[in-house]
């Protein structure tokens, strides 16, 4: 007796919601970044579950692409955070509000 895809989807929805909450409530740029990763992972889970349920492999391929892009995103994003930190000595996104209108 195996776990149906619906459960994975529901779990992914929960994780996605947690990630979204993290982005909205945390000030630390690094934690926000992690929240984004969590959301990406939640989506990946739906891909894999759907891939199994539909009997195809494209879902797993999509997951691999997401991972690659996420890896690239993390390197650049972290480099930006480090650069910002060098200049501003803060990782709090609330203090980076120069673009306010």
């Amino acid at each position: 007796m195996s776990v149906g895809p619906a459960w994975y989807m529901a779990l992914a929805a929960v994780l996605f919601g947690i990630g979204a909450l993290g982005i909205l409530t945390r000030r630390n740029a690094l934690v926000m970044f992690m929240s984004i990763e969590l959301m990406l992972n939640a989506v990946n889970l739906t891909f894999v579950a759907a891939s199994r349920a539909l009997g195809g492999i494209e879902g797993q391929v999509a997951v691999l692409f997401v991972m690659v892009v996420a890896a690239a995103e993390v390197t650049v994003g972290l480099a930006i955070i480090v650069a910002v930190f060098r200049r501003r000595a803060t990782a709090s996104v609330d203090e980076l509000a120069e673009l306010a209108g």
Partner: protein
Amino acid sequence: MTDVIWLVVLFPLIGFLALLFFGKRIGEPRAGYLGSATVIVAFVLALIAAFDFIGGEGEAHTVVLFEWMPSLGLDVAFLWDPLSAAMTLVVTGVGALIHVYSIGYMHGDPRFGRFFTYLNLFIVSMLLLVLGDNFGVLFVGWELVGLSSYLLISFWFTKPSAAAAGKKAFVVNRVGDVGFLVALMLIFSSFGSLAYGEVFEHAPEVLSGGMATAVTLLLLIGAAGKSAQLPLYVWLPDAMEGPTPVSALIHAATMVTAGVYLVARSGALFELAPTSAAIVATVGALTALFAATIAVGQKDIKRVLAYSTISQLGYMFMAVGAAAYVAGVFHLVTHAFFKALLFLGAGSVIHAMADEQDMRKMGGLRSKMPITFATMAIAWLAISGIPPLAGFWSKDEILAVVFNRGGAWIALWVIGLITAGLTAFYMTRLMYMTFFGAPRWADGVEPHESPALMTMPLVALGVASAFAGFINTPWRLGFEHFLEPTFERFEVHLAHPPDGITPWILAIVSVLVALAGIAIGRRRYGGAMPAETGLWWDRVENGYYVDDVYGTTLVLPGKRASQVMAFAFDAKIIDGIVNGTGTAVRAFSKALRPLQTGLVRSYGVGILAGAVGLLIWFLSRGGV
């Protein structure tokens, strides 16, 4: 051999490119040698290529270089037939002589190399114009000669009058070009092609009478612009601001005859529109008379020649309007020789008088400049129509042909005759004021004969002016036979001089008129310089104030309108719209600006709210 006529264009083109890029480095005399050599080579090649026609056994044919606009069926192709051959020979021949002359004339000019660059560009353009096998190539050449004319008129652009003259020539030519361009569009929409063969072959079937008239009248506007005919002639006198060789080459011998060439080339179209042809002839006759009267009162030696050119072009128009294409082209050729000679002689005089152009300050140059005087005297008699010089034959043929048409054409003949008398008179005036009588030179001017580089072309042109008439005498119509293939091909009906005794009577009449003109001139100017003041002289000298009339009736309203557009319409309405948009955007953004908090997390709330909203929308639509 004749397939290589593209070489005729290629050599001046090479000269142009070489001078364009290396003109300054090549240096003063060598740039002139290079330019002249390429044109001389072109002339020799053209001469060789034209041998077949001279022998009477050549066939007109087309040389396709490459496809230009395949979708329009437009090729870059050259047509080698007697008409284009004659034009090519005139262009390269006179062009070569004037190139050589310019080496002497432009000596010491800081932009010596650039001058020859432009001259070569002009030769290339003019060859494109006359050699093109379709109206497309013709038009390209047409515009390019306009460009080189502009560049050369304002060659001394630091002189404000020269710059203004160049601009004027350019603008006035554009007016004519608009008509020409519309004519080309009409032709293309009617025939679906711009190739001469296609158009002229099918003209009788395709064109209705009205359409033919429209097309030919529009062509006439273009031709009048380029050839300085009546309403659009005003640029040519001002074009004398350019260096004298330019006046000789472009504004007397070659470019201004492009209109004549165009009408002659389009003979098959004018055949279908007798009204247009009559209008062409009338315009020509009126221009001839009008310009001749103005020429009588000019003080500036080059302006006399300029108005004379306009007048002679009027003759040619009269001829081609009367379907006497051979006579028109014949006059074109002879005129090219003697008018170029006159200009070059005038240039020689100006050169000798240290750039003085006012004839009142000349006089008595005969002994100082014998060669110039002798050659100019030939040209004087030639243009006056004294046999057996070139001008007599061609002008007389035109008058005879016009007379032979009968009816209202007789009036045109009378005008032509009066013009002939006036021509003889003002040319005599020019000669006497310049070469005879007592010197009236300004202080410090020491006239001297020009260098050999300048006199050699004078002599060559003098010989041509003297004998060119014999190519088409009533006893031996050589030139007519030469040109026949061109017009035969499309069944253009040529007007012919009358038979029997009539031409002799006409010739005697015109010679008598010419002699009378010379006699009056000699009487009036043979002695001391008469005072030329008074209302009449004032009007004539200023060309009946046509420029001022144009200025107040056309240019001034245009200026006013553009001022209104610039300072009222553009500043208030256009800018108002732009500024209003800007103000509106600014106000709008001011209202929206608080949304831009700079806080990433606030934006995140927006994104998530959007996602939630979309989900609600999907679900309310009943499923995804």
